């Protein structure tokens, strides 16, 4: 009992500074309703992704990402009891498509941004910390990549690698890492000059310790902010590729493809231009809110993480 109280007190004392930090961060997020909205949107999408099998039970047991179709007619059909959001060209069920498409989007976003982060951090750190020839080589590569238009490069890559989702992700990773490497390099150059890094060197820390304990933790936050903004952006680019017919195989639950199905149905027949509104609007809104959610969340991260904005 006595011991428990003591341990609790010790624990409280330990956690106090961290709690204070968290409280402070939360208070800043609370003060901005937009960040809250972002958080809400992303949580909503996460729940949709998790609950996908219950929201829309797969028809093809072992291929849950294949959108069930109801006939082969080209003309979309409006929402009805059986097709909550209607069907799109080729009678693919829109409701099913957007629900499972959420999972696809998260997969694209996380895989691409995660890989980009790792590649960017490793190359950027090497470049920034060691400088010299290493820096020169990496940075000139970055320059080369960044001087090419992203989307076109990605298209070329996907065409070369073959049309499927994995290749889209690979292409996005290849075109996506350079800005990260450059950003982290800049931050590392800044942090490297700080006295605490010099002090760590004077203590006899190894380069590895210095990079991972002293430099990266202080340089990585702008990168994380950028990453959270990019989750949305990458999904958007992937959708663009899908829209151009370079993405997922036909019938795969993917928002970009849903929109590409609706390509011919954006404007309805004369006299009724909004006849097929659901075909393009619904997947469009999903993409819109997904990207918006990540953008708002990115801003919230910036508020929380950026030490420069924290006075004191």
């Amino acid at each position, binding site marked *: 009992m006595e011991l428990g109280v003591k341990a609790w007190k010790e624990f409280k004392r330990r956690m106090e500074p961290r709690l204070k930090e968290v409280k*402070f961060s939360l*208070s*800043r997020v609370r003060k901005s309703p937009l960040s809250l909205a972002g958080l809400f949107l992303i949580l909503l999408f996460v729940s949709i992704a998790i609950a996908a099998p219950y929201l829309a039970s797969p028809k093809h047991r072992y291929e849950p990402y294949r959108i069930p179709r109801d006939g082969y007619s080209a003309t979309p059909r409006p929402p009805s009891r059986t097709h909550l959001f209607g069907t799109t060209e080729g009678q693919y069920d829109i409701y099913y498509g957007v629900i499972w498409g959420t999972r696809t989007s998260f997969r694209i976003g996380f895989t691409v941004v995660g890989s980009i982060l790792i590649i960017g951090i490793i190359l950027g750190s090497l470049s920034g910390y060691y400088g010299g020839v290493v820096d020169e080589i990496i940075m000139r590569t970055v320059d080369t990549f960044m001087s090419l238009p992203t989307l076109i490069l990605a298209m070329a890559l996907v065409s070369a690698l073959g049309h499927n989702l994995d290749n889209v992700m690979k292409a996005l990773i290849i075109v996506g890492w350079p800005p990260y490497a450059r950003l982290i390099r800049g931050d590392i150059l800044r942090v490297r000059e700080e006295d605490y890094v010099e002090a760590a060197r004077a203590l006899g820390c190894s380069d590895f310790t210095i990079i991972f304990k002293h430099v990266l933790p202080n340089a990585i936050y702008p990168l994380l902010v950028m990453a959270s903004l990019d989750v949305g952006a990458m999904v958007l680019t992937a959708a663009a590729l899908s829209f151009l017919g370079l993405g997922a195989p036909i019938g795969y639950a993917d928002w970009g493809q849903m929109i590409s199905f609706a390509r011919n149905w954006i404007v309805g027949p004369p006299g009724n231009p909004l006849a097929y509104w659901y075909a393009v609007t619904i997947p469009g809104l999903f993409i819109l809110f997904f990207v918006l959610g990540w953008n708002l969340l990115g801003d919230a991260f910036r508020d929380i993480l950026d030490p420069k904005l924290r*006075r004191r």
Partner: protein
Amino acid sequence: MAKLLEVKDLVTNFYTYEGVVKALDEVNLEIEEGKTLGLVGETGCGKSVTALSILRLIQPPGKIEGGKIYFRPDGKSSKKSSYLDLLEQSEAFMRKVRGDEISMIFQEPSSALNPVYSINDQISESFLLHRRRELSESVVREIEEKVDKADSILKKIVYKMKRGTYRKMLVDENSFLLKFLSGIPVVSSYNGWLKKSAKKETIEILKKLGVPHPQKLVDRYPHELSGGMQQRIVIAMALACHPKLLIADEPTSNLDVTIQAQILDLIRKSRKDLGTSVLFITHDLGVVAEMCDRVAVMYAGSVCEISEVKELFKNSLHPYTKALINAIPKPGGKGKLKSIKGTVPNLINPPSGCRFHPRCPNQMKICRQIKPELTRVENNHLVACHLFTGQR
């Protein structure tokens, strides 16, 4: 001696996330015409906030909450030459006062200089802003000479037209016609004369400040100059319009001793030449001893002692002043420095009563309860401490 500026019970707060920072708690100051008042104190005691409050430059989340700042303008920016409460004047009036009547030098010269303008542009600007009329006068005089000498009729006409515009400026520097003219491309070149004469003035003032090769210097850019030279330019800018009051916020804290000696010398000389009063903010008691006639010592947002310099060093009364003087290394002095125990209080939750009481060796019961008023102890010596207020 007449008072130039009197600050009474000035209160300024900052509304931050953590709470209200009570940065100034009834600050009282007086500056006499032609004298230098030193304002000393440790980091965060509110020296800069006092200076910014006087100029009404406090930015949100800060707010001036109370008090009076009486200032007697020169009649340059207003017809009246009696005391005005700056806190009650319009923002437009304050804009005129800033730079013209009261100007300020900051600690970091590079932040006061705009890197994309040449030295001439920066110093001329304050002439062009506040001294249009005087400049036009000299331009008119110059043109008059030229009109007489002009050989062709065409030239004569051009000169006469220009003279007309400048005379207009003499009558009303903000007239609509002039604004209209300066909007038209070719015609706006009439400003050229004005600029030329401003440049002349600029070189003149730099020469007066003992800057070597002013003619060459005016065309250079701030980053090409050393810190000491930059600070000299900033001083030239501040003195350009012969202000009545110069507020110098730690002007030499970032400079080397030998450069500091140069700058202090410069301020001392120009103060004498122009008869400017100075509010000299610093944390270096050595600089105070060299520069100031009177000293105000600040602690945690209020002034705790004001007296003549010599008196202060010889016969300081407030326990904080005493401790401060004992804490600085003195030439030839060996033995232990006496530090002040404890730390500077957090201004969000300042101590009750006398804000110094938790660190004071002489604290009494009353110190914890009542804030001591600034009381005249001797003729020119004011102290805010219960040891001297008569209340015990």
